[in-house]
Every structure is written in structure tokens, then in C-alpha cells.
């Protein structure tokens, strides 16, 4: 589904990603782990066209999409649930969902997806007319996922969806990811919460110093002292 090869990204003179390569097979949940500032968000931003890589390539379903605009990548089926949710706070929940489908022209598909998303997150249906800024943190996170889903993606990039969630809601999030996976969605999950990653991901990669320093099955991560140490840096 997604193949990242030798990806390199700089902000001005500072090189953030040196050489990042990994793959996300179709239908799987792959987790990207790393300490604060290790460049996880940068990887996602490079994949969805928000920053322009210096080098390397990202192929989506076999097509090289390196350096394309965000709306072009979105049309190729890649959506992001950004870190910090970034919902449209002054707009209603319904309008947020509508904006999620902004790049689409198939009205019927949009209507179907709206139903699907609202079925997945019944709370959003209740609060459809509320301004997104008035929702709780957990609800906003759901809205961010729902909005990304509205573009009808094949690959979902999720950036630390567990941050700031109450433990009870954390379970919901894990359940959501599992449900999405069960529907056949391919997911690249950026996490600092190793528990969440281990609970839902098939494979995990650890990012450090601008490179992938460790890769392996996610289930083994929690027990792996060496990985945890390198991860905590």
C-alpha cells in the first residue's frame, strides 16, 4: 500500500529525517514510534504533501507521490488525523465532516461515508450541530478521525491519537482503530504510547536520529527491554 524509501527531510538547514525506509502493507496497522522531536510527525507530513522531502520517495499503491500537493495525495486515498486534532473549532461537527469530504465530487459516496462515520461515532451524530470547539478532548479526537474518514481513504495516517485522552476514552480509541482495521483500512499509526501501539499494530518501527533504528512485530514490543531503552532515548 505504502512504500517509503530513503526519505530525507530538512527544515531550513536542520536535517530532521536522514534516511527513513519502511512499508505499510495493505490491510495492516503499522506503528511508528519515537521520542519527542524524533521526526514522526515530519514523516507523516512528508507523506501527505505538507512538507517537501529533500530526497527519497514515497509510493502509494505503486505510484510515486513524492512532492505532490496535499489535495493530490488526498485524492489518491491518503488521509491524516493530525496531532493535536486540529478540528475546525468555529465550525459545527457536521461542517467539519463536510470539509473532510471537500476534495470529493461523488455526492452519493459522501452521503454513504457520512452515515458510516456517524454509525462508528454515535456521539458525533448527537452533537452534529455543536461547534467543534465546544466538544470534549475525546470527542474532538473522534471528530478528527471521522473527518479524515470522510475523504474515503485507503490509508489513514494517525498522529498520536491517544494523547490527552482519559483512560476510559483511550479504550474507545483502541476499539476504533481495531474496528477500522476490521473494515479493511490500512493504518500508519504514530504513537508514543507503546501500550496502544502494541495493542493494535501488526508491525512497529522505531524512529531515532532521523532513521528507523528498530523494526519488528508490535506484540513483542512491550516485552523488549532493548527497544524500550532505545525508544526512551
Amino acid at each position: 500500500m505504502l512504500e517509503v524509501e530513503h526519505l530525507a527531510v530538512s527544515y531550513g538547514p536542520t536535517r530532521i529525517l536522514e534516511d527513513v525506509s519502511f512499508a505499510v502493507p495493505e490491510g495492516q496497522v503499522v506503528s511508528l514510534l519515537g521520542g519527542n522531536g524524533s521526526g514522526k510527525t515530519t514523516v507523516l507530513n512528508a507523506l501527505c504533501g505538507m512538507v517537501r522531502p529533500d530526497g527519497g520517495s514515497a509510493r502509494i499503491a505503486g505510484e510515486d507521490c513524492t512532492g505532490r500537493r496535499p489535495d493530490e495525495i488526498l485524492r489518491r486515498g491518503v488521509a491524516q488525523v493530525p496531532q493535536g486534532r486540529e478540528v475546525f473549532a468555529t465550525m459545527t461537527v457536521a461542517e467539519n465532516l463536510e470539509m473532510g469530504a471537500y476534495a470529493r465530487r461523488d455526492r452519493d459516496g459522501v452521503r454513504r461515508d457520512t452515515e458510516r462515520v456517524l454509525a462508528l461515532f454515535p456521539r458525533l451524530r448527537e452533537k452534529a450541530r455543536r461547534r467543534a470547539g465546544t466538544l470534549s478532548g475525546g470527542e474532538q479526537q473522534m471528530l478528527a478521525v471521522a473527518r479524515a474518514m470522510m475523504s474515503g481513504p485507503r490509508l489513514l495516517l494517525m498522529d498520536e491519537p491517544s494523547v490527552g485522552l482519559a483512560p476510559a476514552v483511550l479504550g474507545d480509541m483502541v476499539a476504533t482503530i481495531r474496528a477500522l482495521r476490521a473494515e479493511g483500512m490500512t493504518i500508519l499509526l504514530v504513537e508514543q504510547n507503546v501500550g496502544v501501539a502494541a495493542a493494535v499494530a501488526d508491525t512497529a518501527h522505531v524512529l531515532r536520529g532521523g532513521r528507523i533504528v528498530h523494526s519488528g512485530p508490535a506484540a513483542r514490543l512491550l516485552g523488549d527491554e532493548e527497544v524500550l531503552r532505545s525508544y526512551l532515548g
Partner: protein
Amino acid sequence: MLSYLLLSGLTTGSIYALVALGIVLVYKATGTINFAHGDQLMIAGFLAFTLHVLLGLPYLVALAGAVAGSFALGAVAAQVGFRAVLRTSLVNVVLATLGLAFVLKGFARLTWGGISDYLSFPPLVRPEPILIGDMVLLPQQLVVTAGALAVMGLFALFFRLTTIGKAMQATADNPRAARLVGIRVERIHLLAFAVGAAIAGAGATLMAPLTLLYPDIGFMLFIKGFAAAVLGGLTSLPGALVGGIAIGVVEALAAGYIHSSFLEVSAFVAIMATLVLRPRGLMGGPPPRRA
């Protein structure tokens, strides 16, 4: 006396509000103050004058022409002048809009400067004052107030009902997220400048019979409109209306009850006081984030 002054404040305030609406729209969408807004109004007014007075076209055609012409001019100016600098710093954008203001004024001086000192623009409605209760009003003043309300209403609908309007609002709300959902933010910025200019076109045609037309009118309109926008909170369309009318009323009351020499200063004292008490203005939300 009070009711006369309030009414006078309401009618001049409507002019300020009509200017402020365009400033707020551009600021909301781009995070930039368009210093050329007043001069875009001026040019639009001359455009309407050319169509209506010089070429003898009907008022509504002139109105449509001024709106369309302004929209095009705004789009071209934004494309040529602002697009490159929008990506750089805020100061550069401000400078670019200031530069545009000078260019427009120079253009107007050359093109229309020789006709007369102040061009008069025939009113849309009959010129005799009308009596409402014991208040005397010029029909055109009602037209301006109604126009300000209508423009505001139209934009409320535009933002609420159309996808492009919602995309503008989304861009104003969170430009990063707007890009993530596939909105071409640069185009929205362009559109905002153009639509802001189109509002200037409508406003200028409505207010020209009251304000007269001259190349230097833009600066005064900008200052008052900007003040109204700041008072209203810079990001709120209803705020622009409330801010404009508040300034008009404060000016009228100060001039009527204290002395006419307090008129100019009173508005700015009111703004300072408001901003000290409510730093985000009367109806402002948080400032827009830049993409």
C-alpha cells in the same frame, strides 16, 4: 437631540461598517490587513461613476459592473502582488497592500483627477429628505444601512450554505487542517482578496452618493473601516457592523454633546478603552492562524 444623533451615528456607522466588512473578510481568511481596501473602494466608486454617470448605464448595471470589476482587480492584485509575499512574512504582505494603495490612488488621479474636485454621484433613490417619526433622513442613508446589513447577511449565508464559503471559513479557522482536507489555501487567500474587493465594489456604489468621489477618499474610509473592524474584533462580520455603528454613534454623541472638535478623537478613545477592557474587541475570537 439624542435621537437625531443616534440616527446620524447609525447612518455614518453603516458606511464604516460597509468598509469594515471587507477588511474583516480578508483578515479572517488570510490573517492580513489589506491596507489597499480603502483605495479599492475608491477605484470601485470611480468605476461605478464611469459606468453610471459617464456612460449612462442604469444604476444596477453600474453596481454589478463595480462589483465584478473590483473582484477582477482584487484577484489580479492578489495574484500579482500578494501571492508571492503571502508565503513570506506578514510585514511584506502589509507592505504589498500599502504599495497597491499608492498605485490605485495614482491611477485614479491620472484617470479621473481632471474632471472635478469632488465628483457627485446621483443617489439610487430620490434625493429629498424623508420624515420617519420626527426624524429626518436621506433615503440614500437608509440604502447604505440596508446595504451594509444585506452584504453582511449575504456573507453569513455564503459562509453557512456554500462549500466554497465553508472552505474560506475553514481556512480562516485552521489553515493547516484546511490543507489536510485538500483545500488549496493559496487559492482561498486569492479568493478572499477578490471577494473583499467585490464587497468594496458594492459598498462604494452604495455610499458614493453620500461621500462623493475623489482620489483621496480611500484613506479616510480605510481608517474608519479599520477602526470599526478592530472595535468589532477583526474576525467577526457582525462585529464589523456593530463596531462601525458604535464608532458612528460615539462620534455623533461626542460632537453633539461636547464639541465638534471631539469627533475625531472620540472614536479612537472609545477604541482604546474597548481594547483595554476587551483585548479581542467587542465580538472577536482568537486571531487567525497563518498557514
